[in-house]
């Protein structure tokens, strides 16, 4: 029973993907229109700051409805095809497995890298981030930690010297060290 429900939802989400995406976008564009109304306005002006986002929101709503309609028409035909080809419908990936898990981990790594750059500074953050990110993207069979560590250290050193001394660009020093001093 549970499996049939899951399978039906899986078929629905794949066949009617554009319908679901269109619905989410419709909601976003409605929120844009609502958000635009709360913009502070210049009393004397006839065309105010809320005008442009409101126009974007209205056109977006219309296009989202068209996308939903298009998705519904093509999805209905696709659903018929999927039901007749049950073998095909088994394909799918769970949210926290395989490629999805690596994508989520990459997102978290980049977010942590940005936080770490501002806190700890560019050099230590880059050393850790590069090592972890390269390890994550490399297949287990080809993963050689020592080689990755050497690449990480050499690349970080080259970029630091190039940006800091050749291009004379600022690299984040890290707030924690400034407080320490």
């Amino acid at each position: 029973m549970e499996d049939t429900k899951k399978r039906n939802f899986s078929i629905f989400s794949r066949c009617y993907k554009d319908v679901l995406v269109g619905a989410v976008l419709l909601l976003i564009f409605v929120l844009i229109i609502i958000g635009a109304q709360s913009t502070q306005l210049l009393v004397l002006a006839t065309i105010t700051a809320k005008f442009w986002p409101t126009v974007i929101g209205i056109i977006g709503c219309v296009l989202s409805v068209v996308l939903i309609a298009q998705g519904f028409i093509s999805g209905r035909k696709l659903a018929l095809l999927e039901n007749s080809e049950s073998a095909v419908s088994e394909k799918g990936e769970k949210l926290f497995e395989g490629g999805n898990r690596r994508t989520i981990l990459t997102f978290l790594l980049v977010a942590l890298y940005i936080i770490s750059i501002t806190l700890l500074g560019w050099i230590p953050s880059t050393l850790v981030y590069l090592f972890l990110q390269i390890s994550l993207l490399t297949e287990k069979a080809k993963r050689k930690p020592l080689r990755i560590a050497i690449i990480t250290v050499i690349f970080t050193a080259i970029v630091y010297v190039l940006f800091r001394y050749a291009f004379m660009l600022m690299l984040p020093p890290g707030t924690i060290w400034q407080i320490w001093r």
Partner: protein
Amino acid sequence: MDLLLSSFGQIITPEIILLLFAGVVIGIIFGSIPGLTGGMAIALCLPFTFRMDAVPSFALLLALYIGGISGGLISAILINIPGTPASVATCFDGHPMAKKGLGGKALATGVIFSFFGTIFGILILMFLAPPLSQIALKFGVFEYFSVAIFSLSLVSVLLGKSMIKGLIACLIGLFLASVGSAPIDGFPRFTFGIHAFDAGFAQVPSLVGLFALTEIFKAAKDRSSYHITTKDSKIKGVGFTGKEFVKQVPNGIIASIIGTVVGIMPGIGAATCNVMSYGVIKRLSKHPEKFGTGIMDGVVASEASNNASIGGAMVPLITLGIPGDAVTAILLGAFTMQGLQPGPMFFTANMNFIYILFALLLLGSFMTVIVQFFGMRGFIKVLKIPKSVLLPMVLVMCLVGSFAINNVAFDMWTFLIFGTVGFFLSKFGFPLTPVIMGYVLGPIAEIYLRRGLMVGRGSFLPFITHPISGVFLGMSIIIIVYTFISQTLQARKKNPAKGKIANVYDD
């Protein structure tokens, strides 16, 4: 002609040649690293020119400008990440060529037609600058708005499989550009009381985030392809045959005309012309279906136009004293520092110096083609680095570049926000280019729409009754209606379910 020859005589000195060479090399490096731009290179090198005379100073700055625009093609072709908005369209066919093992040919095409475009733009600047600047003066608020809308509709409609998704992607870009202080009255919009949002999202972190981070997310999802290409990408001779070059000349001319004309328009310039030119050449082609699969035509369309925009952008700068973008604004500053005042009288009062500038531009573009041509064999080695190592390295440089532009940590978050938006959009079949074009042109379209409505006292009619504006708006409507009808007819002809099922599992 005598004046030009004597100008060459004045600039061919070891000092100027060395400055041109240094400028070109630094410009190419900045242009080719995603996150760094030619504009940043010019801003960084400007202080070095304070003590220089006018000629060596402009030798360095103009070489940086040409090198920066030309360098963008390297990352666009090899790693599918455009360093600047000027090379967005180079990715469309350049990277598929690299994946097919034709990276050398793609680079050679880009280099040669960048040179072609630069020379075309400079020649137009030399011979037609004063009359062209008069045409540019005829462009008012209505015309600028209509050109922006035309560019956006062209990009949204022509670049994706679905017109509706292209237009929605463009609207998302327009919305993201509206975050922060509103133009004209400066009231904050969609900032949720967070002051970091007040200035809006910076352009370079948004662009590199959208393309680079999306690319790394894709690599994380599917790590089966270890290298960008497993095929041999050796460069033989020039990279392509004489016959292939001759075949591309008409495309090069069309792209250069578009680049020069669009380049003249302040603010719209190189960021728009490459995508606009790609769209037009695809529309005019006998085989539009081959675009995006890795053909020379696509690389020519983008590279000839973005380099031709250099000459175009110099037209309003020299003849009217109006800078079109951040780079030309810095150049205007450099003119002022040297005691020169570009404007209507500049052409007649400084004829000698103007011709020295032309000679510097010509020599700089020769230098660029030579440096890039000999560097190509080195650039192509990037394809040998595994994606799992290359992409994190690129991401690190993108983040450094994002931070270094304004030294603001929020710009790194902008990188992450745009990357995440880009990943989800591309996962659901939305093209990314309309997002960035909407983001770049959004503020221009809004400011001119609001000004136009103010001038017309709330009426939209002047946008249609002004001839140039009316023509551009009319063309936008025709393109949208025509594409909508042709896509609907195509969908009816095909069995929609069959086509769709392939897309579902491609994701």
